[in-house]
């Protein structure tokens, strides 16, 4: 059993490496690794049913972030995001702290709703980046702020894909995560914003406004606010009157909120084009989720998942506390969301068994993982950031290096949450 599972892991690693060396994308390299492992496990046959069945693993999660991103894109295309950014700058340009605070909150919204840091970068990243530049913050610091806030937005509640996937895998309700995730993601994003952007020049309002795209004339708080109010109302209604209204599900709620966004938009929106663009921009994300599902299924089939789980749960606790801050981001950079079911589930079982508060512990891990989205080979959010901001500096020596101190801060507080999970269990709720 050990030999077989070890062999399968080796096949996965080697075929993934070869595929990457042949310049295949991460998604296809994972697919190649999964198929190779499946063939070796089955003695030359292809377990077709398992390959197809695995692709369903995260279908519902995919639906959530496709519809959520569609909603955010509608807000952006209707001029809502530009309106919000201009309003924040206009209202708070005299107070740097307040301005940075509200820009941080704005950066958190898209990822919090969609679970995707890339969505934050794509919907509000550029506009906030423009404002930050006009606040006298250097290019590399702006890029670092946008990345870290985007990563924290993905970690922020209500939708944290790592926590959702790990919770689902360990038969644990995705309930009670709201406050711990909020505390961690807010602390992390505010630290990054103020540490990197606290000092600079005063905002030149007229110059900044000139650079920011102008929203349509009729755009106002009601038009931009109502879709969000509808969304929050539907989510709350499902909790307050769960037995009087039909089960809607998050994707449908986003669709309903999107309909409001469409009707309230001051300009006519090309819905089909926006929907198509949404799916186009999400293809790397949807693709990786589907391929990760296939890989996980083959690893479960062959015992490779069990071997990894066993290796993780038999590690001494002090080793985990000392190393998770490094292991989690690096594995995220390597495997993306696959790490949540692969490492997260056995860790949760272990933490449960050791009497730790599993919700606090998983929240801490679910904030550490997105830090890896700046690391190779995937670097999904990091790449999106430098592309969207048209960053001209060097990726590692400027962008990544500038991000290191806030990243270290976030990993430190998350590690403290892990170690003191029981003491922090009062945060669990909602």
């Amino acid at each position, binding site marked *: 059993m050990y030999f077989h599972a070890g062999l399968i892991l080796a096949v996965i690693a080697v075929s993934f490496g070869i595929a990457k060396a042949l310049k*295949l*994308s991460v*998604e*296809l390299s994972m*697919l190649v690794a999964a198929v190779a492992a499946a063939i070796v496990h089955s003695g030359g046959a292809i377990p077709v049913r398992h390959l*197809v*069945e695995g*692709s*369903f693993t995260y*279908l519902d999660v995919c*639906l959530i972030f*496709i*519809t959520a991103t569609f909603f955010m894109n509608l807000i952006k295309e209707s001029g809502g995001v530009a309106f919000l950014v201009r309003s924040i700058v206009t209202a708070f340009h005299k107070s740097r702290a307040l301005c940075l605070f509200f820009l941080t909150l704005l950066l958190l919204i898209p990822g919090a709703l969609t679970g995707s840091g890339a969505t934050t970068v794509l919907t509000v990243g550029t506009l906030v980046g423009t404002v930050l530049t006009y606040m006298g913050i250097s290019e590399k610091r702006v890029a670092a702020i946008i990345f870290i806030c985007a990563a924290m937005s993905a970690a922020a509640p209500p939708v944290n894909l790592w926590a959702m996937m790990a919770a689902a895998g360990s038969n644990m309700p995705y309930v009670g995560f709201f406050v711990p995730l909020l505390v961690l993601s807010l602390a992390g994003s505010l630290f990054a914003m103020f540490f990197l952007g606290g000092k600079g020049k005063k905002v030149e309002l007229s110059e900044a406004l000139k650079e920011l795209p102008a929203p349509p004339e009729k755009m106002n708080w009601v038009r931009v606010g109502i879709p969000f109010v509808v969304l929050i109302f539907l989510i709350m209604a499902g909790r307050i009157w769960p037995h009087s209204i*039909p*089960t*809607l*599900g998050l*994707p*449908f709620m986003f*669709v309903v909120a999107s309909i409001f966004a469409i009707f309230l938009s001051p300009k006519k929106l090309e819905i089909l084009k926006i*929907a*198509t663009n949404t*799916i*186009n921009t999400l*293809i790397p994300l*949807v*693709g990786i989720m*589907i*391929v990760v599902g*296939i890989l996980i299924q083959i690893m479960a089939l062959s015992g490779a998942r069990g071997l990894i789980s066993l290796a993780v749960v038999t590690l001494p606790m002090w080793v985990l506390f000392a190393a998770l801050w490094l292991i989690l981001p690096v594995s995220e950079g390597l495997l993306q969301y696959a790490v949540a079911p692969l490492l997260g589930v056995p860790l949760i079982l272990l933490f449960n068994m050791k009497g730790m508060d599993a919700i606090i512990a998983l929240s801490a891990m679910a904030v550490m993982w997105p830090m890896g989205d700046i690391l190779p080979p995937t670097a999904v959010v990091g790449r999106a950031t430098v592309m969207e901001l048209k960053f001209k500096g060097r990726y590692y020596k400027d962008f990544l290096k500038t991000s290191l101190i806030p990243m270290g801060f976030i990993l430190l507080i998350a590690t403290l949450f892990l170690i003191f999970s029981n003491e922090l269990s009062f945060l669990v709720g909602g």
Partner: protein
Amino acid sequence: MAILYTIISVCYYLIIAFITFVIARNLVKTKNFQEAILFSVMLMPFILRILRIK
């Protein structure tokens, strides 16, 4: 309530159908062979769900 459940369920199938359509269109249009392979794999769960097989 039963009618509402049916309507919502139908909406979900429509959402899935639309996503399938866009992925299929991308498959036809893409000039990148890696994307083409990925798109075809991505279609799998969506098609089987629309057909109510899985």
